[in-house]
Protein backbone atom coordinates (compact mmCIF):
# COMPACT_ATOMS: atom_id res chain seq x y z
CA UNK A 1 0.00 0.00 0.00
CA UNK A 2 2.37 2.76 1.22
CA UNK A 3 5.83 2.38 -0.19
CA UNK A 4 8.68 4.70 0.77
CA UNK A 5 11.91 4.01 -1.10
CA UNK A 6 15.39 5.43 -0.47
CA UNK A 7 14.10 8.78 0.76
CA UNK A 8 16.58 11.54 1.35
CA UNK A 9 15.73 15.03 2.56
CA UNK A 10 18.25 17.69 3.50
CA UNK A 11 17.33 21.03 5.08
CA UNK A 12 19.79 23.67 3.98
CA UNK A 13 20.12 26.45 6.52
CA UNK A 14 22.52 29.40 6.49
CA UNK A 15 24.90 27.84 8.96
CA UNK A 16 24.70 24.16 8.15
CA UNK A 17 22.85 21.39 6.41
CA UNK A 18 20.59 19.02 8.33
CA UNK A 19 20.08 15.57 6.82
CA UNK A 20 16.56 14.81 8.09
CA UNK A 21 16.09 11.67 5.98
CA UNK A 22 19.01 9.60 4.89
CA UNK A 23 18.18 6.80 2.49
CA UNK A 24 15.00 5.76 4.30
CA UNK A 25 12.85 2.97 2.99
CA UNK A 26 9.66 1.67 4.56
CA UNK A 27 6.52 -0.20 3.56
CA UNK A 28 3.14 -0.28 5.28
CA UNK A 29 0.68 -2.71 3.82
CA UNK A 30 -3.10 -2.83 4.19
CA UNK A 31 -4.08 -3.54 7.78
CA UNK A 32 -0.61 -2.78 9.01
CA UNK A 33 0.07 -0.53 12.00
CA UNK A 34 3.67 0.64 11.80
CA UNK A 35 5.27 2.66 14.57
CA UNK A 36 8.43 4.65 14.00
CA UNK A 37 10.18 5.42 17.25
CA UNK A 38 13.03 7.76 17.80
CA UNK A 39 14.23 10.78 19.74
CA UNK A 40 13.17 14.33 18.99
CA UNK A 41 14.83 15.77 15.91
CA UNK A 42 15.66 12.41 14.34
CA UNK A 43 13.48 13.14 11.25
CA UNK A 44 10.20 11.44 12.21
CA UNK A 45 7.97 14.40 11.31
CA UNK A 46 9.85 14.93 8.04
CA UNK A 47 9.22 11.28 7.20
CA UNK A 48 5.46 11.78 7.72
CA UNK A 49 5.34 15.02 5.71
CA UNK A 50 7.18 13.38 2.82
CA UNK A 51 4.92 10.31 3.03
CA UNK A 52 1.84 12.55 3.08
CA UNK A 53 2.75 14.39 -0.13
CA UNK A 54 3.45 17.64 1.67
CA UNK A 55 7.25 17.75 1.39
CA UNK A 56 9.04 16.70 -1.76
CA UNK A 57 12.09 14.53 -0.97
CA UNK A 58 15.47 15.35 -2.49
CA UNK A 59 15.65 11.80 -3.75
CA UNK A 60 13.79 8.55 -3.44
CA UNK A 61 10.17 7.78 -4.09
CA UNK A 62 6.76 7.66 -2.44
CA UNK A 63 3.91 5.55 -3.71
CA UNK A 64 0.49 4.78 -2.34
CA UNK A 65 -1.11 1.89 -4.16
CA UNK A 66 1.40 2.55 -6.90
CA UNK A 67 0.61 6.26 -7.30
CA UNK A 68 3.46 8.73 -6.77
CA UNK A 69 1.98 11.98 -5.34
CA UNK A 70 5.03 13.98 -6.42
CA UNK A 71 4.37 13.15 -10.05
CA UNK A 72 1.04 15.03 -9.74
CA UNK A 73 0.36 18.74 -10.12
CA UNK A 74 -0.06 20.68 -6.84
CA UNK A 75 -3.85 20.73 -7.31
CA UNK A 76 -4.02 17.00 -8.07
CA UNK A 77 -1.71 16.30 -5.15
CA UNK A 78 -4.10 18.22 -2.89
CA UNK A 79 -6.96 16.08 -4.18
CA UNK A 80 -4.81 12.95 -3.64
CA UNK A 81 -4.25 13.96 -0.02
CA UNK A 82 -7.95 14.61 0.55
CA UNK A 83 -8.86 11.18 -0.82
CA UNK A 84 -6.00 8.99 0.43
CA UNK A 85 -4.36 10.39 3.54
CA UNK A 86 -5.53 11.27 7.02
CA UNK A 87 -3.28 13.33 9.29
CA UNK A 88 -3.24 13.33 13.09
CA UNK A 89 -0.95 15.79 14.91
CA UNK A 90 0.36 16.09 18.45
CA UNK A 91 -1.12 19.62 18.70
CA UNK A 92 -4.49 18.43 17.31
CA UNK A 93 -4.75 21.53 15.08
CA UNK A 94 -8.48 21.83 15.53
CA UNK A 95 -10.09 24.98 14.15
CA UNK A 96 -10.85 26.97 17.30
CA UNK A 97 -14.05 28.61 16.10
CA UNK A 98 -15.73 25.45 14.80
CA UNK A 99 -17.75 22.98 16.84
CA UNK A 100 -16.72 19.36 17.13
CA UNK A 101 -19.10 18.44 14.31
CA UNK A 102 -17.82 21.20 12.04
CA UNK A 103 -14.20 20.33 12.80
CA UNK A 104 -14.83 16.74 11.79
CA UNK A 105 -16.48 18.05 8.62
CA UNK A 106 -13.55 20.28 7.59
CA UNK A 107 -12.09 17.67 5.16
CA UNK A 108 -15.38 17.81 3.23
CA UNK A 109 -14.22 21.24 2.05
CA UNK A 110 -11.61 19.42 -0.01
CA UNK A 111 -13.67 16.39 -0.97
CA UNK A 112 -17.40 16.88 -1.23
CA UNK A 113 -19.70 13.95 -0.50
CA UNK A 114 -23.42 13.85 0.21
CA UNK A 115 -23.08 11.60 3.22
CA UNK A 116 -20.40 13.66 4.97
CA UNK A 117 -22.73 14.97 7.68
CA UNK A 118 -24.03 11.54 8.57
CA UNK A 119 -20.56 9.99 8.57
CA UNK A 120 -19.27 12.83 10.76
CA UNK A 121 -22.03 12.13 13.30
CA UNK A 122 -21.29 8.40 13.20
CA UNK A 123 -17.61 9.06 13.81
CA UNK A 124 -18.39 11.43 16.67
CA UNK A 125 -20.61 8.78 18.27
CA UNK A 126 -18.03 6.09 17.63
CA UNK A 127 -15.34 8.11 19.40
CA UNK A 128 -17.60 8.76 22.37
CA UNK A 129 -18.14 12.46 21.62
CA UNK A 130 -21.87 12.39 20.93
CA UNK A 131 -22.67 14.83 23.70
CA UNK A 132 -19.84 17.13 22.62
CA UNK A 133 -20.88 17.64 19.00
CA UNK A 134 -21.78 21.30 19.44
CA UNK A 135 -18.85 22.16 21.70
CA UNK A 136 -15.83 24.12 20.52
CA UNK A 137 -12.30 22.79 21.08
CA UNK A 138 -11.66 25.13 24.01
CA UNK A 139 -14.44 23.31 25.90
CA UNK A 140 -12.92 19.85 25.42
CA UNK A 141 -10.27 17.89 27.29
CA UNK A 142 -7.03 17.12 25.46
CA UNK A 143 -8.06 13.49 25.01
CA UNK A 144 -11.36 14.56 23.49
CA UNK A 145 -9.57 17.00 21.20
CA UNK A 146 -7.32 14.25 19.90
CA UNK A 147 -10.31 12.01 19.28
CA UNK A 148 -11.94 14.84 17.32
CA UNK A 149 -8.73 15.13 15.28
CA UNK A 150 -8.79 11.38 14.68
CA UNK A 151 -12.45 11.48 13.60
CA UNK A 152 -11.58 14.34 11.24
CA UNK A 153 -8.73 12.30 9.74
CA UNK A 154 -11.11 9.44 9.06
CA UNK A 155 -13.99 11.42 7.49
CA UNK A 156 -12.92 10.93 3.87
CA UNK A 157 -12.14 7.22 4.39
CA UNK A 158 -8.39 7.53 3.77
CA UNK A 159 -6.20 4.58 2.85
CA UNK A 160 -3.49 5.57 5.26
CA UNK A 161 -3.33 7.48 8.54
CA UNK A 162 -0.16 9.44 9.22
CA UNK A 163 0.02 10.25 12.91
CA UNK A 164 2.69 12.51 14.40
CA UNK A 165 3.06 12.00 18.16
CA UNK A 166 -0.73 11.72 18.58
CA UNK A 167 -0.37 10.74 22.23
CA UNK A 168 2.32 13.26 23.08
CA UNK A 169 -0.04 15.50 25.02
CA UNK A 170 -2.33 12.84 26.43
CA UNK A 171 -2.56 10.97 29.72
CA UNK A 172 -2.34 7.21 29.79
CA UNK A 173 -6.04 6.44 29.38
CA UNK A 174 -6.52 8.91 26.57
CA UNK A 175 -3.41 7.58 24.83
CA UNK A 176 -4.73 4.06 25.05
CA UNK A 177 -8.05 5.11 23.61
CA UNK A 178 -6.48 6.93 20.66
CA UNK A 179 -4.08 4.08 19.92
CA UNK A 180 -6.93 1.60 20.12
CA UNK A 181 -8.90 3.59 17.56
CA UNK A 182 -5.88 3.70 15.26
CA UNK A 183 -5.59 -0.05 15.70
CA UNK A 184 -9.24 -0.43 14.69
CA UNK A 185 -8.57 1.57 11.53
CA UNK A 186 -5.69 -0.76 10.67
CA UNK A 187 -7.84 -3.76 11.50
CA UNK A 188 -10.39 -2.50 8.98
CA UNK A 189 -7.75 -2.65 6.24
CA UNK A 190 -6.14 0.76 6.47
CA UNK A 191 -2.47 1.45 6.98
CA UNK A 192 -1.20 3.41 9.95
CA UNK A 193 2.20 5.06 10.09
CA UNK A 194 2.70 6.51 13.54
CA UNK A 195 5.83 8.34 14.60
CA UNK A 196 6.41 8.75 18.32
CA UNK A 197 8.88 8.47 21.13
CA UNK A 198 6.10 6.97 23.31
CA UNK A 199 7.09 3.33 24.03
CA UNK A 200 3.45 2.49 24.84
CA UNK A 201 2.55 2.90 21.17
CA UNK A 202 4.65 -0.07 20.23
CA UNK A 203 2.26 -2.37 22.06
CA UNK A 204 -0.43 -1.63 19.44
CA UNK A 205 1.87 -1.92 16.43
CA UNK A 206 2.43 -4.92 14.24
CA UNK A 207 5.82 -3.54 13.46
CA UNK A 208 8.10 -1.05 15.14
CA UNK A 209 10.89 0.73 13.35
CA UNK A 210 13.60 2.74 15.04
CA UNK A 211 14.85 6.00 13.62
CA UNK A 212 18.00 7.91 14.47
CA UNK A 213 19.76 10.72 12.62
CA UNK A 214 17.48 10.35 9.63
CA UNK A 215 18.03 6.64 9.25
CA UNK A 216 15.56 3.79 9.77
CA UNK A 217 16.42 0.40 11.21
CA UNK A 218 14.04 -2.49 11.94
Amino acid at each position, binding site marked *: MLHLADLTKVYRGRAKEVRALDDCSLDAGPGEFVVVQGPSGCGKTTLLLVAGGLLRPDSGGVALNGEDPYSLSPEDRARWRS*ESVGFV*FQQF*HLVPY*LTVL*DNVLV*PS*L*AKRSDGAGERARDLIEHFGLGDRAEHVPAELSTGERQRVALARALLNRPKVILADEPTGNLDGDSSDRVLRHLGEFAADGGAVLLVTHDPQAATYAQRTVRMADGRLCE
Partner: protein
Amino acid sequence: MTVWRLVAKEIGYRRLNFALGAVAVLVAVGCVVAVLTVLSGYDVRAEGIGDAQEARTQDIGAGLKDDARRLMLELGYNVLILHKDQDLGEFYAQGRASKLMPETYAEKLAASRRLMVRHLLPSLQERIVWPEQNEPIILIGTRGEVPQTHLDPKKPMIAAVPKGTMVLGSVLAQKAGLEVGKQVKLLGRAFTVGKIHERRGNEDDVTAWIDLAEAQELLGKPGRINAILALGCLCVAQTPGGVSKEITSILKDTQVIELLREAAIRRATRTAVGNRADQFVGLEKTGRESLRLERAVLEKWVILPVVLGCVVWVGLLALGNVRRRRTEIGLLRAMGVRAGQIVSIFLARALLVGLMGAAIGYAVGFVVAAAWDAGGVALGGKAVGVAALFDPILLAATLVLAPLLSALASLVPAMMAAQQDPATVLREE
Protein backbone atom coordinates in the same frame (compact mmCIF):
# COMPACT_ATOMS: atom_id res chain seq x y z
CA MET B 1 -18.83 22.21 5.31
CA THR B 2 -18.76 25.08 2.85
CA VAL B 3 -16.52 28.10 2.38
CA TRP B 4 -19.35 30.44 3.40
CA ARG B 5 -20.07 28.46 6.59
CA LEU B 6 -16.38 28.51 7.50
CA VAL B 7 -16.24 32.27 6.81
CA ALA B 8 -19.38 32.96 8.83
CA LYS B 9 -18.07 30.96 11.80
CA GLU B 10 -14.69 32.69 11.63
CA ILE B 11 -16.34 36.12 11.52
CA GLY B 12 -18.38 35.21 14.58
CA TYR B 13 -15.19 34.11 16.36
CA ARG B 14 -13.01 37.09 15.37
CA ARG B 15 -15.67 39.75 15.59
CA LEU B 16 -13.26 42.56 16.41
CA ASN B 17 -11.11 42.02 13.34
CA PHE B 18 -14.21 41.86 11.16
CA ALA B 19 -15.72 44.92 12.83
CA LEU B 20 -12.51 46.93 12.39
CA GLY B 21 -12.52 46.13 8.69
CA ALA B 22 -16.20 46.96 8.37
CA VAL B 23 -15.67 50.22 10.29
CA ALA B 24 -12.88 51.22 7.89
CA VAL B 25 -15.20 50.64 4.95
CA LEU B 26 -18.07 52.31 6.82
CA VAL B 27 -15.99 55.46 7.47
CA ALA B 28 -14.78 55.61 3.88
CA VAL B 29 -18.20 54.95 2.38
CA GLY B 30 -19.86 57.28 4.88
CA CYS B 31 -17.46 60.12 4.02
CA VAL B 32 -17.76 59.58 0.28
CA VAL B 33 -21.57 59.26 0.36
CA ALA B 34 -21.95 62.28 2.66
CA VAL B 35 -19.67 64.44 0.53
CA LEU B 36 -21.24 63.37 -2.75
CA THR B 37 -24.77 63.75 -1.41
CA VAL B 38 -24.09 67.16 0.13
CA LEU B 39 -22.43 68.26 -3.11
CA SER B 40 -25.33 66.95 -5.15
CA GLY B 41 -27.63 69.00 -2.90
CA TYR B 42 -25.44 72.02 -3.58
CA ASP B 43 -25.64 71.18 -7.24
CA VAL B 44 -29.43 71.19 -7.19
CA ARG B 45 -29.46 74.55 -5.41
CA ALA B 46 -26.65 76.00 -7.50
CA GLU B 47 -28.37 74.83 -10.68
CA GLY B 48 -31.54 76.57 -9.57
CA ILE B 49 -29.67 79.77 -8.73
CA GLY B 50 -27.63 79.46 -11.91
CA ASP B 51 -30.71 78.89 -14.05
CA ALA B 52 -32.38 81.95 -12.54
CA GLN B 53 -29.19 83.99 -13.04
CA GLU B 54 -28.87 82.76 -16.61
CA ALA B 55 -32.51 83.58 -17.29
CA ARG B 56 -31.96 87.07 -15.81
CA THR B 57 -28.86 87.55 -17.93
CA GLN B 58 -30.77 86.38 -20.99
CA ASP B 59 -33.60 88.78 -20.14
CA ILE B 60 -31.11 91.63 -19.76
CA GLY B 61 -29.48 90.65 -23.05
CA ALA B 62 -32.83 90.47 -24.78
CA GLY B 63 -33.73 93.84 -23.26
CA LEU B 64 -30.47 95.33 -24.51
CA LYS B 65 -31.14 94.00 -27.98
CA ASP B 66 -34.67 95.40 -27.90
CA ASP B 67 -33.43 98.77 -26.63
CA ALA B 68 -30.89 98.88 -29.43
CA ARG B 69 -33.54 97.94 -31.94
CA ARG B 70 -35.85 100.65 -30.74
CA LEU B 71 -33.08 103.23 -30.62
CA MET B 72 -32.07 102.30 -34.12
CA LEU B 73 -35.62 102.90 -35.27
CA GLU B 74 -34.96 106.53 -34.41
CA LEU B 75 -32.52 106.55 -37.28
CA GLY B 76 -35.63 106.33 -39.41
CA TYR B 77 -36.41 104.50 -42.61
CA ASN B 78 -33.56 103.14 -44.69
CA VAL B 79 -35.38 102.24 -47.89
CA LEU B 80 -37.01 104.74 -50.28
CA ILE B 81 -39.20 103.61 -53.17
CA LEU B 82 -39.76 106.04 -56.03
CA HIS B 83 -41.20 105.86 -59.49
CA LYS B 84 -38.89 104.21 -62.02
CA ASP B 85 -38.75 107.39 -64.14
CA GLN B 86 -37.98 109.71 -61.27
CA ASP B 87 -34.87 111.78 -62.03
CA LEU B 88 -32.74 111.38 -58.94
CA GLY B 89 -30.82 114.61 -59.66
CA GLU B 90 -34.05 116.51 -59.61
CA PHE B 91 -35.20 114.57 -56.53
CA TYR B 92 -32.06 115.45 -54.56
CA ALA B 93 -32.04 119.07 -55.81
CA GLN B 94 -35.68 119.76 -55.04
CA GLY B 95 -36.11 117.39 -52.10
CA ARG B 96 -39.24 115.89 -53.61
CA ALA B 97 -40.23 113.38 -56.28
CA SER B 98 -42.12 114.72 -59.18
CA LYS B 99 -43.12 111.33 -60.62
CA LEU B 100 -46.20 109.81 -59.04
CA MET B 101 -47.23 106.22 -58.35
CA PRO B 102 -50.57 104.65 -57.46
CA GLU B 103 -51.22 104.51 -53.72
CA THR B 104 -52.16 100.82 -54.17
CA TYR B 105 -48.45 100.01 -54.63
CA ALA B 106 -48.09 100.17 -50.87
CA GLU B 107 -50.83 97.54 -50.38
CA LYS B 108 -49.30 95.38 -53.08
CA LEU B 109 -45.94 95.42 -51.31
CA ALA B 110 -47.51 94.80 -47.93
CA ALA B 111 -49.27 91.72 -49.26
CA SER B 112 -46.02 90.13 -50.46
CA ARG B 113 -44.85 87.28 -48.26
CA ARG B 114 -41.24 87.31 -49.47
CA LEU B 115 -40.54 90.92 -48.58
CA MET B 116 -37.53 91.71 -46.38
CA VAL B 117 -38.73 95.22 -45.49
CA ARG B 118 -41.25 96.38 -42.95
CA HIS B 119 -42.91 99.61 -41.79
CA LEU B 120 -44.18 100.56 -45.30
CA LEU B 121 -45.16 104.22 -45.33
CA PRO B 122 -46.76 105.63 -48.50
CA SER B 123 -46.67 109.44 -48.75
CA LEU B 124 -47.31 112.36 -51.01
CA GLN B 125 -44.85 115.22 -50.54
CA GLU B 126 -44.89 118.66 -52.11
CA ARG B 127 -42.92 121.82 -51.46
CA ILE B 128 -45.51 124.59 -51.49
CA VAL B 129 -46.01 128.03 -50.11
CA TRP B 130 -48.68 127.94 -47.39
CA PRO B 131 -50.91 130.65 -48.82
CA GLU B 132 -52.73 131.45 -45.56
CA GLN B 133 -49.42 131.87 -43.68
CA ASN B 134 -47.28 132.93 -46.61
CA GLU B 135 -44.63 130.40 -45.55
CA PRO B 136 -42.72 127.90 -47.72
CA ILE B 137 -43.42 124.47 -46.30
CA ILE B 138 -43.08 120.80 -47.06
CA LEU B 139 -46.52 119.31 -47.09
CA ILE B 140 -46.65 115.61 -46.44
CA GLY B 141 -49.76 113.55 -46.70
CA THR B 142 -49.54 110.24 -44.90
CA ARG B 143 -51.99 107.54 -43.92
CA GLY B 144 -49.62 105.82 -41.55
CA GLU B 145 -47.87 102.50 -42.11
CA VAL B 146 -49.63 99.89 -44.21
CA PRO B 147 -50.16 96.75 -42.08
CA GLN B 148 -48.46 93.54 -43.21
CA THR B 149 -51.13 91.18 -41.95
CA HIS B 150 -49.13 87.98 -42.49
CA LEU B 151 -46.40 89.21 -40.10
CA ASP B 152 -46.35 89.89 -36.37
CA PRO B 153 -47.68 93.38 -35.79
CA LYS B 154 -45.00 95.98 -35.01
CA LYS B 155 -45.41 99.34 -33.40
CA PRO B 156 -45.41 101.89 -36.24
CA MET B 157 -42.45 104.26 -36.50
CA ILE B 158 -44.77 107.03 -37.57
CA ALA B 159 -48.39 107.21 -36.51
CA ALA B 160 -51.15 108.12 -38.93
CA VAL B 161 -52.44 111.70 -38.86
CA PRO B 162 -56.21 111.75 -38.26
CA LYS B 163 -58.37 113.51 -40.84
CA GLY B 164 -58.85 117.22 -40.10
CA THR B 165 -55.70 117.25 -38.02
CA MET B 166 -52.29 118.71 -38.76
CA VAL B 167 -48.92 117.91 -37.23
CA LEU B 168 -46.34 120.67 -37.50
CA GLY B 169 -42.61 121.05 -37.34
CA SER B 170 -41.42 123.32 -34.54
CA VAL B 171 -39.98 126.13 -36.67
CA LEU B 172 -43.10 126.29 -38.77
CA ALA B 173 -45.39 126.33 -35.73
CA GLN B 174 -43.30 129.04 -34.11
CA LYS B 175 -43.22 131.26 -37.21
CA ALA B 176 -46.99 130.84 -37.73
CA GLY B 177 -47.68 131.33 -34.05
CA LEU B 178 -49.59 128.08 -33.85
CA GLU B 179 -50.24 125.91 -30.81
CA VAL B 180 -51.78 122.50 -30.29
CA GLY B 181 -55.57 122.68 -30.50
CA LYS B 182 -55.63 125.85 -32.60
CA GLN B 183 -57.73 125.98 -35.76
CA VAL B 184 -55.79 126.75 -38.92
CA LYS B 185 -56.54 126.84 -42.64
CA LEU B 186 -54.45 125.25 -45.39
CA LEU B 187 -55.35 125.78 -49.00
CA GLY B 188 -58.79 126.79 -47.79
CA ARG B 189 -59.43 123.69 -45.66
CA ALA B 190 -59.72 123.88 -41.88
CA PHE B 191 -57.41 121.78 -39.69
CA THR B 192 -56.81 121.49 -36.00
CA VAL B 193 -53.17 121.50 -34.84
CA GLY B 194 -52.91 118.02 -33.30
CA LYS B 195 -49.22 117.99 -32.43
CA ILE B 196 -46.11 120.10 -32.72
CA HIS B 197 -42.80 118.21 -32.93
CA GLU B 198 -39.74 119.07 -30.89
CA ARG B 199 -37.05 120.83 -32.88
CA ARG B 200 -35.17 118.26 -34.98
CA GLY B 201 -32.69 120.51 -36.75
CA ASN B 202 -33.62 119.39 -40.24
CA GLU B 203 -36.33 120.03 -42.86
CA ASP B 204 -38.86 118.28 -40.60
CA ASP B 205 -38.96 121.58 -38.70
CA VAL B 206 -40.76 123.23 -41.64
CA THR B 207 -43.04 120.29 -42.46
CA ALA B 208 -46.79 120.00 -42.10
CA TRP B 209 -48.23 116.47 -41.93
CA ILE B 210 -51.84 115.84 -42.83
CA ASP B 211 -53.92 112.80 -43.81
CA LEU B 212 -52.91 111.36 -47.18
CA ALA B 213 -56.36 111.45 -48.73
CA GLU B 214 -56.77 115.12 -47.74
CA ALA B 215 -53.35 115.94 -49.17
CA GLN B 216 -54.20 114.15 -52.43
CA GLU B 217 -57.43 116.16 -52.63
CA LEU B 218 -55.81 119.50 -51.78
CA LEU B 219 -52.98 118.90 -54.26
CA GLY B 220 -55.33 117.52 -56.92
CA LYS B 221 -53.64 114.12 -57.06
CA PRO B 222 -56.24 111.66 -55.87
CA GLY B 223 -55.03 108.08 -55.31
CA ARG B 224 -51.44 109.06 -56.04
CA ILE B 225 -48.26 109.05 -53.99
CA ASN B 226 -44.69 109.95 -54.85
CA ALA B 227 -42.74 107.90 -52.28
CA ILE B 228 -42.92 104.84 -50.12
CA LEU B 229 -40.59 104.72 -47.15
CA ALA B 230 -39.66 101.39 -45.54
CA LEU B 231 -37.34 99.81 -43.05
CA GLY B 232 -35.15 97.04 -44.37
CA CYS B 233 -33.94 94.17 -42.25
CA LEU B 234 -30.33 93.96 -41.04
CA CYS B 235 -29.43 92.28 -44.30
CA VAL B 236 -29.90 95.54 -46.21
CA ALA B 237 -26.36 96.54 -45.24
CA GLN B 238 -25.07 93.01 -45.66
CA THR B 239 -26.31 92.47 -49.22
CA PRO B 240 -26.63 95.85 -50.96
CA GLY B 241 -29.07 95.69 -53.83
CA GLY B 242 -30.90 92.68 -52.47
CA VAL B 243 -33.89 94.62 -51.20
CA SER B 244 -34.02 96.70 -54.36
CA LYS B 245 -34.12 93.60 -56.51
CA GLU B 246 -36.84 92.12 -54.40
CA ILE B 247 -39.07 95.23 -54.47
CA THR B 248 -38.69 95.90 -58.17
CA SER B 249 -39.62 92.30 -58.85
CA ILE B 250 -42.98 93.09 -57.21
CA LEU B 251 -43.39 96.67 -58.42
CA LYS B 252 -41.92 96.74 -61.90
CA ASP B 253 -42.07 100.51 -62.49
CA THR B 254 -40.30 101.57 -59.32
CA GLN B 255 -36.75 102.24 -58.30
CA VAL B 256 -35.37 101.70 -54.84
CA ILE B 257 -32.86 103.81 -52.96
CA GLU B 258 -31.21 101.93 -50.12
CA LEU B 259 -29.98 104.33 -47.45
CA LEU B 260 -26.90 102.20 -46.81
CA ARG B 261 -25.25 104.38 -44.17
CA GLU B 262 -28.28 104.21 -41.88
CA ALA B 263 -28.67 100.54 -42.55
CA ALA B 264 -25.00 99.86 -41.81
CA ILE B 265 -25.11 101.82 -38.55
CA ARG B 266 -28.27 100.03 -37.55
CA ARG B 267 -26.84 96.65 -38.37
CA ALA B 268 -23.48 97.29 -36.68
CA THR B 269 -25.12 98.58 -33.51
CA ARG B 270 -27.61 95.78 -33.22
CA THR B 271 -24.97 93.16 -33.96
CA ALA B 272 -22.59 94.66 -31.37
CA VAL B 273 -25.30 94.79 -28.72
CA GLY B 274 -26.43 91.29 -29.61
CA ASN B 275 -22.88 89.99 -29.36
CA ARG B 276 -22.37 91.68 -26.01
CA ALA B 277 -25.60 90.20 -24.70
CA ASP B 278 -24.60 86.74 -25.95
CA GLN B 279 -21.20 87.27 -24.36
CA PHE B 280 -22.85 87.87 -20.96
CA VAL B 281 -24.80 84.62 -21.28
CA GLY B 282 -21.65 82.84 -22.40
CA LEU B 283 -19.75 84.16 -19.37
CA GLU B 284 -22.53 82.88 -17.16
CA LYS B 285 -22.30 79.44 -18.73
CA THR B 286 -18.50 79.40 -18.50
CA GLY B 287 -18.73 80.33 -14.84
CA ARG B 288 -21.07 77.43 -14.18
CA GLU B 289 -18.86 75.02 -16.10
CA SER B 290 -15.88 76.19 -14.07
CA LEU B 291 -17.83 75.53 -10.85
CA ARG B 292 -18.64 72.03 -12.08
CA LEU B 293 -14.95 71.37 -12.76
CA GLU B 294 -14.01 72.66 -9.30
CA ARG B 295 -16.57 70.28 -7.84
CA ALA B 296 -15.14 67.35 -9.76
CA VAL B 297 -11.62 68.17 -8.51
CA LEU B 298 -12.90 68.53 -4.95
CA GLU B 299 -14.65 65.17 -5.19
CA LYS B 300 -11.50 63.55 -6.49
CA TRP B 301 -9.35 64.96 -3.69
CA VAL B 302 -11.83 63.91 -1.02
CA ILE B 303 -12.65 60.49 -2.40
CA LEU B 304 -9.20 59.30 -3.47
CA PRO B 305 -7.37 59.62 -0.12
CA VAL B 306 -10.33 58.25 1.81
CA VAL B 307 -10.73 55.24 -0.47
CA LEU B 308 -6.97 54.68 -0.62
CA GLY B 309 -6.71 54.85 3.18
CA CYS B 310 -9.57 52.40 3.50
CA VAL B 311 -8.03 49.98 1.00
CA VAL B 312 -4.70 50.03 2.86
CA TRP B 313 -6.42 49.58 6.22
CA VAL B 314 -8.59 46.67 5.03
CA GLY B 315 -5.53 45.12 3.38
CA LEU B 316 -3.52 45.34 6.61
CA LEU B 317 -6.37 43.81 8.60
CA ALA B 318 -6.63 40.99 6.06
CA LEU B 319 -2.88 40.45 6.33
CA GLY B 320 -3.20 40.27 10.13
CA ASN B 321 -6.02 37.76 9.73
CA VAL B 322 -3.91 35.62 7.42
CA ARG B 323 -0.96 35.64 9.82
CA ARG B 324 -3.17 34.73 12.77
CA ARG B 325 -4.65 31.78 10.82
CA ARG B 326 -1.32 30.42 9.61
CA THR B 327 -1.72 27.02 11.30
CA GLU B 328 -5.34 26.71 10.24
CA ILE B 329 -4.37 27.39 6.62
CA GLY B 330 -1.53 24.86 6.85
CA LEU B 331 -3.94 22.26 8.23
CA LEU B 332 -6.52 22.94 5.51
CA ARG B 333 -3.85 22.61 2.83
CA ALA B 334 -2.61 19.37 4.42
CA MET B 335 -6.15 17.98 4.26
CA GLY B 336 -6.29 18.71 0.55
CA VAL B 337 -8.08 22.08 0.46
CA ARG B 338 -6.93 23.68 -2.77
CA ALA B 339 -5.14 27.03 -3.11
CA GLY B 340 -8.12 28.54 -4.94
CA GLN B 341 -10.40 27.61 -2.04
CA ILE B 342 -8.03 29.26 0.43
CA VAL B 343 -8.13 32.45 -1.67
CA SER B 344 -11.91 32.27 -1.84
CA ILE B 345 -12.15 31.96 1.97
CA PHE B 346 -10.35 35.29 2.41
CA LEU B 347 -12.05 37.02 -0.52
CA ALA B 348 -15.51 35.95 0.69
CA ARG B 349 -14.67 37.37 4.08
CA ALA B 350 -13.48 40.62 2.45
CA LEU B 351 -16.69 40.84 0.39
CA LEU B 352 -18.74 40.56 3.58
CA VAL B 353 -16.57 43.20 5.28
CA GLY B 354 -17.13 45.49 2.28
CA LEU B 355 -20.84 44.78 2.02
CA MET B 356 -21.55 45.40 5.68
CA GLY B 357 -19.37 48.53 5.75
CA ALA B 358 -21.01 49.79 2.55
CA ALA B 359 -24.58 49.22 3.74
CA ILE B 360 -24.10 50.89 7.12
CA GLY B 361 -21.73 53.51 5.67
CA TYR B 362 -24.24 54.51 3.02
CA ALA B 363 -26.99 54.85 5.63
CA VAL B 364 -24.75 56.92 7.93
CA GLY B 365 -23.41 59.09 5.10
CA PHE B 366 -26.89 59.72 3.74
CA VAL B 367 -28.33 60.57 7.15
CA VAL B 368 -25.44 63.02 7.77
CA ALA B 369 -25.99 64.62 4.36
CA ALA B 370 -29.75 64.82 4.88
CA ALA B 371 -29.23 66.41 8.32
CA TRP B 372 -26.79 68.89 6.78
CA ASP B 373 -29.31 69.69 4.10
CA ALA B 374 -32.18 70.03 6.56
CA GLY B 375 -30.02 72.24 8.78
CA GLY B 376 -30.19 74.88 6.11
CA VAL B 377 -26.46 75.46 6.17
CA ALA B 378 -26.30 75.13 2.47
CA LEU B 379 -26.38 77.88 -0.13
CA GLY B 380 -29.57 79.82 -0.02
CA GLY B 381 -30.55 78.14 3.24
CA LYS B 382 -33.22 76.14 1.46
CA ALA B 383 -33.35 72.36 1.94
CA VAL B 384 -33.36 70.22 -1.17
CA GLY B 385 -35.20 67.37 0.53
CA VAL B 386 -34.47 63.69 1.09
CA ALA B 387 -36.15 62.55 -2.13
CA ALA B 388 -34.01 64.86 -4.25
CA LEU B 389 -30.85 63.88 -2.39
CA PHE B 390 -31.38 60.13 -2.77
CA ASP B 391 -29.44 58.77 -5.71
CA PRO B 392 -30.15 55.08 -6.44
CA ILE B 393 -27.10 54.91 -8.70
CA LEU B 394 -24.84 56.03 -5.85
CA LEU B 395 -26.43 53.40 -3.57
CA ALA B 396 -25.98 50.65 -6.17
CA ALA B 397 -22.40 51.75 -6.93
CA THR B 398 -21.58 51.80 -3.21
CA LEU B 399 -22.98 48.31 -2.61
CA VAL B 400 -21.06 46.94 -5.58
CA LEU B 401 -17.79 48.88 -5.51
CA ALA B 402 -17.09 48.82 -1.76
CA PRO B 403 -17.15 44.99 -1.52
CA LEU B 404 -15.10 44.76 -4.72
CA LEU B 405 -12.50 47.22 -3.39
CA SER B 406 -12.44 45.38 -0.08
CA ALA B 407 -11.83 42.11 -1.94
CA LEU B 408 -9.16 43.80 -4.03
CA ALA B 409 -7.44 45.06 -0.89
CA SER B 410 -7.47 41.51 0.53
CA LEU B 411 -6.28 39.87 -2.66
CA VAL B 412 -2.56 40.02 -1.88
CA PRO B 413 -2.96 38.64 1.68
CA ALA B 414 -5.28 35.94 0.28
CA MET B 415 -2.67 34.95 -2.30
CA MET B 416 -0.03 34.89 0.42
CA ALA B 417 -2.24 32.55 2.43
CA ALA B 418 -2.76 30.25 -0.54
CA GLN B 419 0.97 30.08 -1.25
CA GLN B 420 1.86 29.22 2.32
CA ASP B 421 3.77 25.92 2.51
CA PRO B 422 1.80 23.57 4.80
CA ALA B 423 4.87 21.42 5.47
CA THR B 424 6.78 24.40 6.87
CA VAL B 425 3.86 25.42 9.08
CA LEU B 426 3.17 21.93 10.42
CA ARG B 427 6.87 21.20 11.02
CA GLU B 428 7.29 24.45 12.95
CA GLU B 429 4.21 23.73 15.05
